[in-house]
């Protein structure tokens, strides 16, 4: 069904033909801080809106058109809060949020009965159906990622150094890792990295001196790149593990002069394809690329092929917008408490074929167990073979 929808969206009528009252969705993301993340979230939301508009959004007998407005949170909670305020002032119907500043902004949105859909950050405390009924998430959460990483790494009998940066992303990861690796004797060092640093050699050296035989870095992409650089340039060839930020193209761009340094980097992320098969996700990829072109990483494989980034996080924003539209239709209203209540009821088929939806006690659109591991080789990544779920997943084409 999703494939049909996407096919219709891509090859069908142009959005300019969609008519109706405009409804604004704000995308609150770090367009200047980590542009890849911001851009991919915004494109996913725009594509979701495009699909909904082409299909037609009819609520209570009235036709509506979804419009997406980008607001840069600059990775600053205060900017993020200001953007949510602007969304409220603009009478927006929802905020698709990267996650920065949600601790402060959710209340403002709640007062205005504005749903917030987090589509990147996985902080454990960000989502709580009881205390934050208007906050939802379609992205792997840190709890799931951290426990899956622990489950994957600990049996390898490695001595692990846990490195986190002091960004919001890193600090939320630190909390999750703290729980997942609690009391774990194989952890020989827990080190904080400055998010603004371009050289983390001293911290990497500390990890090495602590006797670590593996490094788990939970940080923003530039810090991961700096960590790999510090380790490999010092000849320290230990396995390095990361959360989803390890797949950020920026790391490959920064390490393009030393592709071998990236080889072996393993990251955890939400699986892109579902149990129903690869077809829905590939259809989504086609639709995405038809709209925006392939997301070129800016590096090449050894044989000279351009490397393409799959629109994984765009998929989450894409799904949230479509769940929102379904909730509007179910509620018979386009904004307010009725839509938030309806978001707890509706379910759609997600871009990868998984069911996406929430309920009264669970506002997580991606379940914990859906975390897989992938490893880089020659600037592209593939699911690892030594994890049951990952081994069952197909390889996603990443070159052109």
């Amino acid at each position, binding site marked *: 069904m999703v494939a049909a929808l996407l096919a219709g969206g891509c090859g069908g009528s142009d959005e300019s033909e969609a008519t109706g009252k405009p409804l604004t969705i704000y995308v609150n993301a770090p*367009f*200047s801080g980590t542009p890849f993340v*911001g851009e991919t979230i915004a494109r996913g939301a725009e594509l979701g809106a495009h699909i909904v508009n082409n299909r037609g959004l009819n609520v209570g007998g009235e036709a509506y058109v979804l419009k997406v*407005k*980008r*607001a*840069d949170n*600059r*990775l*600053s*909670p*205060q*900017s993020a*809060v*200001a*953007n949510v*305020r*602007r969304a409220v*002032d603009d009478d927006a119907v929802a905020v698709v949020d990267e996650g*920065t*500043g949600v*601790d*402060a*902004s959710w*209340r*403002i949105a709640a007062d205005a009965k504005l749903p917030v859909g987090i589509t990147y950050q996985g902080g454990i405390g960000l989502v709580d159906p009881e205390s934050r009924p208007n906050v939802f998430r379609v992205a792997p959460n840190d709890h799931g990622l951290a426990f899956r990483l622990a489950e994957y790494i600990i049996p390898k009998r490695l001595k692990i150094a846990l490195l986190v940066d*002091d*960004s*919001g992303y890193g*600090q*939320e990861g630190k909390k999750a890792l703290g729980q997942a690796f609690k009391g774990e004797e194989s952890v020989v060092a827990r080190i904080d990295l*400055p*998010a*603004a640093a371009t050289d983390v050699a001293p911290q990497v050296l500390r990890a090495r001196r602590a006797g670590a035989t593996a490094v788990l870095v939970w940080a923003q992409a530039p810090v991961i790149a700096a960590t790999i650089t510090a380790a490999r340039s010092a000849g320290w060839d230990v396995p390095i593990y990361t959360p989803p930020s390890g797949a950020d193209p920026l790391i490959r761009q920064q390490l393009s002069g030393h592709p071998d340094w990236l080889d072996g980097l393993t990251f955890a992320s939400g699986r892109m394809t579902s149990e129903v098969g690869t077809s829905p996700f590939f259809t989504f990829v086609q639709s995405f690329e038809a709209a925006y072109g392939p997301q070129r990483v800016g590096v090449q494989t050894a044989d000279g092929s351009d490397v393409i980034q799959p629109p994984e996080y765009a998929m989450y924003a894409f799904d949230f917008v479509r769940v929102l539209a379904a909730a509007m239709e179910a509620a018979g209203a386009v904004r307010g408490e009725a839509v938030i209540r309806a978001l707890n009821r509706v379910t759609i088929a997600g871009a990868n074929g998984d069911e996406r939806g929430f309920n009264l006690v669970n506002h997580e659109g991606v379940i914990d167990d859906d975390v897989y591991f992938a490893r880089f080789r020659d600037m592209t990544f593939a699911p690892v073979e030594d994890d049951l779920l990952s081994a069952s997943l197909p390889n996603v084409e990443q070159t052109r």
Partner: protein
Amino acid sequence: MAGTAALVQTRNAVVEAAHEARVGWNRRATAAVVVLALAALVPALPLDVSLDGLAADLYLGAAAVGLGMIVGLGGMPSLGHGAFVAIGAFGTALLSDRLDWPTEAALVGGVVVAAIAGAAVGTVAGFLRPALVAVVSWLIAWLVFLGLAAFPSVSGGSQGLILEEGTVVGLRLSATLHYELGVALAALALLVFVVLSRSPAGVALAAARQNRAAAEGLGAPVARLRAAVFALGAGIGGLAGGLAVYLAGVADAAAYGPLLSAKLFIAVVLGGAVAPAGGLVGVAVLAALSRLVELGGLDSVQAARVEALLVAVIVLAALGTIERGLLPSLTDWRRRRRGGEPREVAAARHEPPIVDAPASVRGRGLTKRFGSVTALEDVDLDIQAATVHALIGPNGSGKTTALAVLAGAVAPDAGTVAMSGHEPGVVRTLQATAVFPELTALENALVGARPGLGHRVARAVLATPKARADARAARAGAQSALDVVGLGAAADVRAHELPGSAQRRLMIASALATRPRVLLLDEPTAGAGYSEVDLLADLIRDLRSSGLTIVLVEHNLRLVRRVADRITVLEAGRVIADGTIDEVVENEAVLKAYLGGPRN
């Protein structure tokens, strides 16, 4: 009984203050009140505006007014004002979040911390040249930002410190209340600026901004005043920061980086640092630009880029065309339209007040060296009370150094200076015509007129009855000094609009306003015409008759001959002659020094 007396005293003070306010009221004050009243009514009007956004702009505007005090009044180009806004913001947030202080107490705490930090920086900045103030303050902006980033336990890391919604006097801090508080804070900051700028302390600061050496020569405690005004501006910035974090709901280090300091400085430069409302106008221009760019339908990333570009272009254009900022340039333009040519002023002079205890001055063994140059070598000076004592000699003979040593401005390497009596009271005029061009004649004189409590910024800002009484006395003293030099009718004329001769007398009036017992005049006739020399001679004689002791350094021997009771001749830092004019002109050493040998 005592309570009743206190009530009566308070009532009288209030009535007096109201009377003074009425007397000082003008069209600008009316306009300001009308604008503020209209601004306060905005939430009640059916306008589609974001009160949150306006409140944030008003808080920023208030912080800019605080910076305006530091830059415009204090003459210190601070590029780090955002640091004090940050200190106030995080001080308030920490007290509220970690210690559960009520909103009002947390805000006061934040202000105090910011003001203390401002006083500390101001104490150093008060001694520095403007360029160094800019560098040091810019470094402080970075230091605070990096410090907050380095200690996430203090700053809440990149998630910031989350604040619960505050209450002020039992009222929930809603967007409307924030807006009204923003209007009130901006009004308060403006009022403080205006009150301070009109006080003797403010006049002294303005004078020091234009000519620090001359202001200090008149006894203005420039470094202390600058520290105080820095603390005041920082405190206002801190309060703005504290309120802003309650508005945002989060204190986030990323929002208080050096860019905030740059933005505040740009606003002040754009609006005009010397105008109380300059910072507010600058912030309004920047906010309007931002809104204008938003109307263009650009996304926020593009909008931010376009906005930054527009701001840069506008600031450059503004600096190129209206050097002093929007508001002062507007005032200058209006003044030019009214006619700003140098004004002739009547020269009717009043008798100087009698000096109660004429003073004599004795210098013994005065020696001063500057590196390898000996400016004074074992100089003895005996200056009798109520006389005119001239110091003459060729260029470089040490006359001005001797004057500076007598004034206490330069410490001798050896020797002592003693003045009869216990009261201080030596004042010195500078060699060049050192008036404060942007100040009126009365304000120029006011720089020297020290009120009873001296220059107290806090008292001036609070306009206590004592401070107002002192200010009145200072103004009366300043007016009297103008009357003595024949500039009584020019009290409201700006110094740069006066002809050169009047400016020279104004410099003397400023010195007289300090109520000195000893007046040190350094070449008062430099560049003066014949008639003016006559006028100055009359003035000096009158001053001597009033009991004032005058030490005159002068090249114009015509004036010296007419007024000096005694003359000391210096050459190469040594006394070569001392006596009456007749004794000195026959001295061979003097003739040799001036003419290369004795007359035939």
